[in-house]
């Protein structure tokens, strides 16, 4: 074992000392020093297990994964937050899944629609009210292409049969009505919500869309939620390569696109964590191959373009080189401008989905080093994809707590931290430059050739803003 690994492990042990014995033992399994070679047997974290009560996990719930991430962005269906009023309120248009359409008429993305459970619903059940709610919505929004019923905790606890209601009303309306059993107490994090949402796409809409003709170049763009327009920036590259993107999941997605992805020749998945399930299903059932790619930062974009092109004929492969040639001068100019301002800066990441590993290359393009990274709701396969791209001795964290993040920051002194809204302002108080790496801090896009300049600009403005120097730090 190398000394860098040993040093990091020692630091982790010190941080863990504050925990009560049982929790310390448990948390120790989720924190490690990275070994990119995979030789160090103890350098693996345990993932996707229950958070300990009372430690202040950052994690959310299955509803957040199913409503907030996967189903919420589907623009022309109505998404009902079924249960008490809070869940839908707190997740109301907070993920910025951009879409085109006229809200409240043919699209519904920025609306908060809830059955607002009252005590009588808990006592007598909510099915009758749900049935009536579906009818009221159909009256007010005749252009809705579907309705999703996203269950909140009480629905599962009181034994409502939302599947029966859905089935009956779907038949009456002639549009898909999708019961999603994503009660917040299910599973250990958002992750199960993604899986449940994938399963309901499979069961209720997949294969049921209309597509006039197909071409050999048809692909589906999967696992891009169009945060700040990410998916559009990615789509632009694929289209310039000569591919035809027949479905975009689920950022700016229509119900029809969820239905026609089965006609793609290749599924391209960006956020592996949240949508690998449906890709595997389409591979097994429809024989559609899938491939992962990474559109953060020029190095990874070039490699991904070539990897994607390798699935197709010479025409696409030639186009791929032309696209790279076209954008390389712009990317070089971005690096030339920002790299001198960011070279050598250390970054700590604690995010979700694909970001803890996918953004590393973009930081490296700017000369920055990611010294710690972690997932809120990763699984083992996420970590196996992460170890090789992190430096030896970097900290790997799974389901980190507020206490741990603060301690690692104090000890490792990163020049900037990328995490979420709950972490943001404690870092501002510490005087540590911080970017929200879930929502791009209301900026974006960060994907693709159009996204990287925005990413570089944002990291620079945050790391080098003069206001940080005004903080009178107490010694």
């Amino acid at each position: 074992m190398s000394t860098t690994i040993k040093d990091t492990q020692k630091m982790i042990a010190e941080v863990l000392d504050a925990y009560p014995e049982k929790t310390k033992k448990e948390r120790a399994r989720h924190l490690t020093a990275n070994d990119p070679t995979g030789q160090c047997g103890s350098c693996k974290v345990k993932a996707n297990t229950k958070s300990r009560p009372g430690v202040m996990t950052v994690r959310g719930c299955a509803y957040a994964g199913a409503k907030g991430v996967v189903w919420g962005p589907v623009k022309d269906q109505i998404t009902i937050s079924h249960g008490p009023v809070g869940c839908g309120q707190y997740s109301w248009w907070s993920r910025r899944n951009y879409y085109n359409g006229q809200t409240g008429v043919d699209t519904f993305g920025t609306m908060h629609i809830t059955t607002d459970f009252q005590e009588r619903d808990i006592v007598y059940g909510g099915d009758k009210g749900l049935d009536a709610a579906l009818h009221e919505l159909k009256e007010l929004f005749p252009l809705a292409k579907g309705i999703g019923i996203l269950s909140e905790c009480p629905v599962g606890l009181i034994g409502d049969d939302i599947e029966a209601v859905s089935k009956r009303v779907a038949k009456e309306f002639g549009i898909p009505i999708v019961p999603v059993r994503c009660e917040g107490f299910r599973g250990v994090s958002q992750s199960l919500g993604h899986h449940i949402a994938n399963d309901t796409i499979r069961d209720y809409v997949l294969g049921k869309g209309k597509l006039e003709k197909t071409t050999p170049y048809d692909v589906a763009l999967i696992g891009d939620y169009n945060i700040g327009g990410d998916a559009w920036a990615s789509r632009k590259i694929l289209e310039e390569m000569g591919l035809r993107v027949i479905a975009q999941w689920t950022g700016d997605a229509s119900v029809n696109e969820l239905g026609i992805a089965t006609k793609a020749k290749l599924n391209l998945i960006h956020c592996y964590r949240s949508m690998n399930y449906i890709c595997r299903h389409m591979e097994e059932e429809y024989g559609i191959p899938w491939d992962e790619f990474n559109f953060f930062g020029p190095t990874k974009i070039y490699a991904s373009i070539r990897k994607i092109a390798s699935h197709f004929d010479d025409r696409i492969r030639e186009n791929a080189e032309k696209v790279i040639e076209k954008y390389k001068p712009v990317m070089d100019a971005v690096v030339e401008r920002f790299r001198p301002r960011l070279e050598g800066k250390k970054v700590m990441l604690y995010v979700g989905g694909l970001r803890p590993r996918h953004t590393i290359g973009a930081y490296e393009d700017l000369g920055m080093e990611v010294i710690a990274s972690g997932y809120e709701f990763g699984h083992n396969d996420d970590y196996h994809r992460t170890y090789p791209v992190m430096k030896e001795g970097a900290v790997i964290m799974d389901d980190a707590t507020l206490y741990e993040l603060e301690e690692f920051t104090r000890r490792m002194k990163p020049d900037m931290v990328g995490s979420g809204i709950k972490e943001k302002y404690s870092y501002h108080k510490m005087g540590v430059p911080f970017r929200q790496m879930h929502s791009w801090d209301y900026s974006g896009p960060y994907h693709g050739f159009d996204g990287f300049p925005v990413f570089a600009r944002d990291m620079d403005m945050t790391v080098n803003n003069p206001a940080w120097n005004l903080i009178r730090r107490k010694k």
Partner: protein
Amino acid sequence: MKTIRIKDHNELFQEQAYLEQFENKRAFEAPWPKEKVREIAEWTKTAEYQEKNFARKNIKINPAKACQPLGAIFCSSGFDGTMPFVQGAQGCVAYFRSHLNRHFKEPLAAISTSMTEDAAVFGGLNNMLEGLENAYTLYHPKMLAVCTTCMAEVIGDDLHAYIRTAKEKELIPRDLPVPFAHTPSFVGSYVNGYDNMMKGILSAITTGRKGEPNGKINIIMGFDTYTGDYHEIKRLLRMWGVDFTLLSDASAIFDSPNTGQYKLYPGGTPLEDAMDSINASSTIALQQYSTLKTMDYIRKEWSQKALVLPPIGVKNTDFFFEQLSKLTGKPIPQEIEDERGRAVDAMVDSHPYVHGKRFALVGDPDLLLGLVSLLMEMGGIPVHIVCTMGDKKFEDEMQGLLAESPFGSEAKVYAGKDMWHLRSLMFTDPVDILIGNSYAKFLWRDTGTPLIRMGFPLFDRHHLHRYPVIGYQGVLNLVTMIVNSVLDEMDRKTIDTMSFDVIR
């Protein structure tokens, strides 16, 4: 070096390449014909649509409402060294924290017991025990204030027994205050959650503390998300020389100075003071609907004089100071009289731009009552008043207020209705100005009615919550916001005409 103009989403997606992409993408969307969309869009603006919209009883669309535990957490975080502790599923706490972070642009620590399927079957005792032990050991609170999510409420967790067990097992010290409140999300809203938690905390920590009167006045702000109000009330009372205890001082945690250090507990009501609140001469609440049970408790159990005196608007503020003067026996100081004079002077100066203007309002019950009162004081005409969290009591009280002024005669009060109802109203009976939280911006977009951002949450404008809305200073701030919003809109509308005046 090649200079590059960096375009983010604000400009990028207006570029031709993207506009073409969007148009081409429609081939896969099976969209409705554009003509059909236009037709339905127009239909949603009609009286016929409004009738259907108001006929719905089983679904809320864009409600201005959130659930109880949010209010409970807000309340407990205003006490020094106190960690809000939520028995239930963890996603809820992630949401409460995010929601408050986004409004205040401040950190907030809060604990969840991360209940999952097994807790649904066996109850949440083990989660509570381990949660209390971990939270205490790791975060060293002086008090853990427990509330619940709907999960814990549906399965019927016995908080009292669980906390007792934790103390018996010595997982937390026996003398650690651990007040609790049941805060089911399917009853009431955060207004009630604040009330329940306040009552829970006060009843727990004052037990056995009845002693010598301390001569102080307790102040309870209610679910007031203007940190400026907390600073303002402290400034006024100190200036006046009134000895007081501010019960739950949210400004400490939601408006803490940047010192280069993150403090988990940056201050708040000292627990010693809170424990002694039972010995105060009286308690004043600045909101009514978020303090109903608490004030009732104080009256009955502490036998204190408990007055509800919401000081938003001139008349309300006058009444507040008159009552306070009576309570303390001290005359109202000249400084406060001067502040009143300045506020009224501002109203007189600005009245031509507010008089006769028609307003739609959506928000929390107490804020709405204050704002409507203020608007009518300077000739504004409230027209649509929507309060999703309002009940019959609120409706009656608002009707009473409206009846006091000729400017109130046009108004209709919509308790329990939401912003989609308001959208219909604003199409069929348009107004000049809309007042509401950040989510009301969708109404601005749809109806073209200018929005003045007031209330909670305010996500898309910075620092508004730092400016007080209570007292005469609050009047001045509100009048400034209202009149300048009217003038901004006037400029927008007259930009290409001769009426684009430079002096107004």
